[in-house]
C-alpha cells in the first residue's frame, strides 16, 4: 500500500471534502441563486475611478467608497457575505475604462459595477455592459442619459441630473415670479444643454413666463460679460447661471457692476463658495440661490446633525486620510450605501437580473448625508434614484437652505 505522506493527505483531504460536500449540504427552504462573483461568503463588485490623470482629484470618491465597504464588512457584511470591492484606475481615459471594465467582468468575474465615475468613461462601457447584461449601477455622473430603462436596462444613474436640476430652477423661478423673463447662461456642450433643456421644459410655453435669452459660452472664451450685458438689455429678470466656477463668478460680478438685479440661480456645478462666490465677491453673491442634495460638510448647521456625526465618525475610523471638507467624500459613501441597500434587498437571490430588479425598486431609502427628507425611489420606468433637491440662498457667508424639497418624491 502507498505510504501516507503529508502531501498525499493534503491532496486527499480537499478532494474527499469536495466529493462529500454536496451530499452533506442541505438545501435551504428558499432557493439560493447566485450570479457571477457570489459565494456564500463573498460578493465581488467592481468599480473604475480616476486615481491618476487630469481628473485625479475625483479619485477620493473611489477611496471613500472602498472605506464604506470596509465598514460594512467590519459590521458583518451583507446577509453574512463580505463585499469584495475591486476598484481600478482608468485615469479618465475611455479606452482604459473599457479595458479595466472588461477585466472586472471577464477576469475578476464581478456581479456588478458599482458607481463607476465619469461621463465619457461610462459612455464607453455603456453598450458593453448592456450587451453583456452586467449591472452598471449608480454611475457617478450628472448626465441625463443614464435614465433610459428601455434602451439601456442594465445602466442606472444616481445623482440628480442636470436636466432635472434645470426644471427645478424653473419651478423655483415660476414660484417667485410667474411672469419671469428668463435668461440662461450655459456651457456649449451636452451638460450645458442638459441644463438649458431642463429650464425650458420647466418654464413651458403655456404661461406668461418664457426663456428670452439663451446665451452660451465656450470653455475657451475669455469672458462671458457681453452675454450678461445682453441679458440685462433684453429685460431678463430671472438669470440661470449654469456655468463652471470661473464663468459663473464673472457673470455674478458683472451683474453687480451694471446694477442688474434679477433672480439669480447658480447651478450646482458653480455653487462652490471658494471657487465661485469668493472670486465674484461675497457681497455681490448675496441673495444668489442654488440647489443641494447632499449635506455640505463645511456647513456649520450640520454640526449637531446625527447624519453628519455618523459621517465624521466613519471618516475618522475608515478613511482618516480623507479631506473632511471635500464633498466628494460625502458622495462616495452615499453612493456605496445605495449599492449595499440593493444587495441587502437581493437576499440570497444574488443574480444580475435580480440586482437590476432591486435597483429599480428602491422605496424611500435614505442615506445619512442626504439632506433631511430626501428619499431615494426608483421603479422599472424610473432609473433616476436621487431626484429631490432643496434650494439654498447665499447670505454672504454660507448657503442657507430654505423652502420645501423640490422634485418628484416617487418614481
Amino acid at each position, binding site marked *: 500500500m502507498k505510504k501516507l505522506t503529508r502531501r498525499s493527505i493534503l491532496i486527499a483531504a480537499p478532494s474527499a471534502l469536495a466529493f462529500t460536500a454536496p451530499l452533506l449540504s442541505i438545501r435551504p427552504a428558499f432557493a439560493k441563486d447566485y450570479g457571477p462573483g457570489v459565494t456564500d461568503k463573498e460578493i465581488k463588485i467592481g468599480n473604475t475611478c480616476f486615481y491618476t490623470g487630469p481628473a485625479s482629484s475625483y479619485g477620493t470618491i473611489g477611496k471613500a467608497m472602498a472605506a464604506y465597504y470596509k465598514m460594512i464588512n467590519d459590521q458583518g457584511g451583507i446577509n453574512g457575505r463580505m463585499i469584495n470591492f475591486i476598484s481600478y484606475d482608468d485615469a479618465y481615459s*475611455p479606452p482604459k475604462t473599457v479595458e479595466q471594465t*472588461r477585466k472586472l467582468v471577464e477576469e475578476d468575474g464581478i456581479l456588478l459595477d458599482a458607481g463607476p465615475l465619469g461621463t465619457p468613461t461610462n459612455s464607453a462601457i455603456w453598450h458593453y455592459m448592456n450587451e453583456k447584461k452586467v449591472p452598471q449601477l449608480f454611475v457617478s455622473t450628472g448626465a441625463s442619459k443614464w435614465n433610459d430603462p428601455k434602451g439601456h436596462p442594465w445602466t442606472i444613474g444616481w445623482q440628480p441630473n442636470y436636466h432635472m436640476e434645470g426644471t427645478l430652477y424653473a419651478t423655483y423661478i415660476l414660484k417667485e415670479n410667474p411672469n419671469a423673463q428668463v435668461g440662461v447662461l450655459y456651457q456649449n456642450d451636452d451638460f450645458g444643454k442638459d441644463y438649458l433643456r431642463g429650464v425650458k421644459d420647466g418654464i413651458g410655453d403655456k404661461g406668461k413666463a418664457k426663456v428670452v435669452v439663451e446665451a452660451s459660452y465656450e470653455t475657451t472664451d475669455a469672458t462671458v460679460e457681453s452675454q450678461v450685458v445682453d441679458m440685462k438689455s433684453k429685460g431678463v429678470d430671472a438669470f440661470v447661471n449654469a456655468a463652471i466656477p470661473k464663468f459663473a463668478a464673472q457673470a455674478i460680478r458683472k451683474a453687480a457692476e451694471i446694477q442688474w438685479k434679477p433672480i439669480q440661480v447658480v447651478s450646482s456645478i458653480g455653487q462652490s463658495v471658494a471657487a465661485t462666490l469668493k472670486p465674484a465677491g461675497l457681497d455681490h453673491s448675496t441673495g444668489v440661490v442654488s440647489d443641494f442634495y447632499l449635506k455640505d460638510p463645511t456647513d456649520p448647521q450640520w454640526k449637531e446633525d446625527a447624519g453628519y456625526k455618523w459621517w465624521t465618525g466613519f471618516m475618522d475610523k475608515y478613511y482618516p486620510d480623507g479631506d473632511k471638507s471635500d464633498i466628494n467624500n460625502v458622495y462616495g459613501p452615499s453612493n456605496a450605501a445605495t449599492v449595499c441597500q440593493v444587495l441587502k434587498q437581493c437576499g440570497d437571490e444574488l443574480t444580475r437580473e435580480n440586482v437590476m430588479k432591486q435597483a429599480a425598486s428602491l422605496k424611500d431609502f435614505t442615506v445619512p448625508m442626504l439632506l433631511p427628507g430626501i428619499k431615494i425611489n426608483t421603479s422599472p420606468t424610473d432609473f433616476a434614484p436621487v431626484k429631490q433637491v432643496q434650494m439654498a440662498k447665499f447670505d454672504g457667508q454660507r448657503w442657507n437652505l430654505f423652502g420645501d424639497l423640490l422634485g418628484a418624491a416617487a418614481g
Partner: protein
Amino acid sequence: MTSAPKDDAVVAPVAAPRAGAFVRLGPRHLIIAGAIIAAVLIPFYAKSFVLFQLTQVMIYALAILGLNLLTGFNGQFSIGHSAFYGVGAYTTAILMERYGVPYVWTVPAAGAVCFMVGFLFGLPALRLQNLYLALATFTLAIAMPQLLKFHGFEGWTGGVQGLVVDQPDPPSFLPIDGDQWLYYFTLIVMLVMFAGAANLIRSRTGRAMMAIRDNPIAASAMGINTSLYKMLTFGVSALYTGVAGALGALAVAFVAPDSFTIFLSISLLVGLVIGGVGSIAGCLVGGLFMLYVPNIAESISTGLAGVIYGFILLLIIFVMPAGAAGFVRFALAQLARLRQT
C-alpha cells in the same frame, strides 16, 4: 481550429517578399516566422479579455511605429501624435456611424485622411526644428480634443459625448468570435504595415530619410529634396498612427475627445523610447509597455501607481538606455564576443 491554416495563408505572402529581399534565410527570419505562427495560434488558447489586451498592444505598437518613422528614422520630434491617432479614430467612427461605410474600408480611409493631415502639417513644420517642432506639434495635441468638442463639428463628432462604434462582426465563414476576429484583423493590418515600414526603411527613400536625420546639409548636397522627404515622412508617420487610431476605435467601440489628449502622445513617446528609437520590432515592446506597465504599477499600489510607474520607467531607462532593441543588440554582441574568446 480549422481557421488556423487560412490565417497562415494570409500571413505567408507578407513574410515571403521580406525573406526574398535577403540572400539567405537567417535566424532573424526564423524568429519572425516563429513569432507570427505564435501570434496566429494565441486566440485558440487565450481568453477573450487577454485577446482584447493583445489587440490593443498591437494597435499601440502600430501607433508607436508611426512616431518612430518620424522621430527614429527622420529625426523630427512630435508630441502631437495623439492628434493623428484621434483623427484616424474619428474618421473610422464617423464613416461607420454617419455614413454606414463597412469597417474594412474605414481603415485605409483613416490612413489616407491622416496622410493628408500629416503631410500638410509637415509644411509649416519644415521651418521648425527640435524643440520648436516639438512645441508646434504640442499645439496639435492640445487643440485636438477641443476641436472634437467644437459645436460646429458636433453633427459629425457627437461633441463631448463621443460616438459609439459597432464592433465588427467576424466573417460568417470563420468559426470565431468578435474578439478573435478583431485580433486577427489587427494582426493582419499590423503585419502588412510593419513589413511596409521595413521595406521603406531599406529603400532609397528610407536611406534619404535617415540621411536627413544624420546630416541634413550633407543630404541636400547629395541631391535629396529634404523638404519633400520631411513632409512625406510626416505624412507617412501620421498615416501609420492614424491607422492605429482607426483600429483603436474598432477595438474600444467608442471614441470621445478625452481619449486623445496630450497624455496619449506622451505615452506613445515613452513607448518609443522603451522599445528603442529607430527599431521596428522594438515598437511591439513599446506597445506592451504602454498597456501593461500602468496595470502592473496599479496592482502594486493604487495610491502610488504614478510613482511606481515612474520608478519602473527610470529603472528601464537605466538598464536599457537604448530601449529594448538596443538591449537585445547589446546582449547579442556580448554573446558573440563570449563565443569568440
